[in-house]
């Protein structure tokens, strides 16, 4: 059966809805039957995560329909994530003007350049020009206390929340096939990072022995990281059978593995920042919700690597 890329997208969307509905059903059954002996906190966490997945998948449907809307959507997500990042970072009054530029100049400009497909410009705008501008602006403000530390914090926030995440919608501009095919690649990146996160979580719970770093996250283990990544590669292979994101099956497996490892890296790094600030979530200011940044940390780290590997593999 040969489907056109657009039909394939619909098939994919259908599959995702079916899988999510099944998972939601299981979650509901588990939450109503506490006697099955499963930790109720785990069930609650599972259901909360599922809700987030539904939201993310609904938003992803936008990517299938419109490139412009996807850019705007990711721009808003970046903006909000940066808000959460800087809110938790202690900055001083002297940083105010620099922060204004970061929020209202560099962030919109970065996404504007992605929108106009100016790879040569947006790939250096933040790492070079914003990197040089931020310390200068803070120096002009004249507050020397913990100068380098404050500069580095603002630079890191901008790099992680805006620059790295920006490579996710940039996938929609890769010079390959039809638009439907490119949007499926973005879908692959995001779903694989969510799936690998879930798989690592499951492996941690079932087989976790050797905790990687007690002070950062007491539940993340080497078994979870390796097992989760390997299973992510297997999931990627299954995906390849139907949707062929890359030319070779082992390309898909390798890229899946890479997404899983980078996702792990993102989650660990962000955990370290959160522990340092003594909070559980970036979104603690909004009660009862994890922050946006808590949901997208894996994608932030996986996106730039995925973008460049996909570029090499598909455009070579």
């Amino acid at each position, binding site marked *: 059966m040969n489907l056109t890329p657009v039909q394939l997208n619909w098939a994919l969307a259908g599959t995702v809805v079916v899988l999510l509905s099944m998972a939601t059903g299981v979650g509901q059954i588990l939450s109503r039957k506490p006697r099955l002996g499963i930790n109720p906190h785990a069930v609650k966490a599972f259901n909360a995560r599922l809700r987030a997945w539904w939201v993310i998948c609904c938003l992803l449907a936008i990517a299938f329909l419109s490139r412009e809307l996807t850019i705007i959507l990711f721009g808003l997500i970046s903006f909000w994530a940066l*808000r959460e990042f800087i*809110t938790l970072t202690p900055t001083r*009054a002297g940083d105010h*003007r620099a*922060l*204004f530029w970061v*929020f209202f100049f560099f962030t919109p400009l970065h996404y504007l350049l992605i929108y106009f497909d100016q790879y040569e410009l947006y790939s250096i705008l933040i790492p070079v020009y914003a990197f040089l501008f931020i310390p200068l602006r803070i120096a002009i403000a004249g507050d020397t206390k913990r100068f380098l530390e404050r500069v580095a914090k603002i630079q890191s926030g901008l790099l992680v929340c805006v620059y790295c995440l920006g490579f996710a919608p940039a996938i929609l501009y890769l010079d390959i096939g039809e638009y439907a095919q490119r949007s499926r690649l973005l879908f692959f990146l995001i779903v694989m990072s969510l799936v690998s996160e879930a798989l690592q979580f499951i492996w941690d719970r079932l087989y976790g022995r050797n905790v990687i770093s007690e002070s950062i996250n007491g539940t993340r283990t080497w078994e979870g990281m390796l097992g989760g990544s390997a299973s992510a590669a297997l999931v990627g292979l299954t995906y390849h059978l139907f949707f062929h994101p890359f030319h070779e099956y082992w390309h898909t497996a390798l890229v899946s593995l890479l997404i899983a490892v980078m996702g792990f890296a993102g989650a660990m790094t962000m955990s370290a920042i959160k522990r340092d600030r003594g909070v559980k979530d970036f979104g603690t*200011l*909004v*009660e009862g919700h994890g922050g946006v940044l808590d949901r997208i940390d894996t994608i932030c780290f996986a996106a730039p690597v995925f973008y460049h590997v996909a570029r090499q593999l598909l455009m070579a």
Partner: protein
Amino acid sequence: MFTEALLTTLARLLSGASVRWIDSQPDTCQRIYFANHTSHLDAILVWSALPSNVRKLTRPVAAKDYWNGGWVRRHIAKTFNAMLVDRKEIKVHKSPIDIMLRELGNTHSMILFPEGGRSSGESVGDFKSGLFYLSKKRPDLELIPVYIDNMNRILPRGEFLPVPLLSCITFGPPLWLEAGETKNEFLPRARTALLQLQETQRD
């Protein structure tokens, strides 16, 4: 009406404010909300954090010398039904306390910044005596401490461009002036109640 919607939405978007009520509930009874003051947006934020039926009865107290200057400021002050109090010219029988109490009547509540002016936001300054004299004349008013967090980073004193971080507004449990309590006992007590909300934030 239009200005109200516009300003409240704008203030909320810029401040990303989340609102918490700790041991306290929104109510239409007569109250004085007293808050720390670090930015121009504070009054609008506290006001927009209240439910609309409470909001209709609540009036921010603002400095007449500032908010009476120019059409825009007058219009904004009118939109929020602000009580304009002269902090420069104080006359006998027309003291700010008397004006506030008269404007308060038997239905309204008010938002007050007892530090007297905007502070840098790193610490909460000493309270001016207004809060004490108000509750001495009207001991039935509930005094609600309101802690505004992070606004000093969003729109600090002396800056005109905001940086859109996330702020948090915490309403605390009511307190009253105790019988026989002196000014020097009461004002630090009220200030401590406000600072305690800051502590709960850090948990």
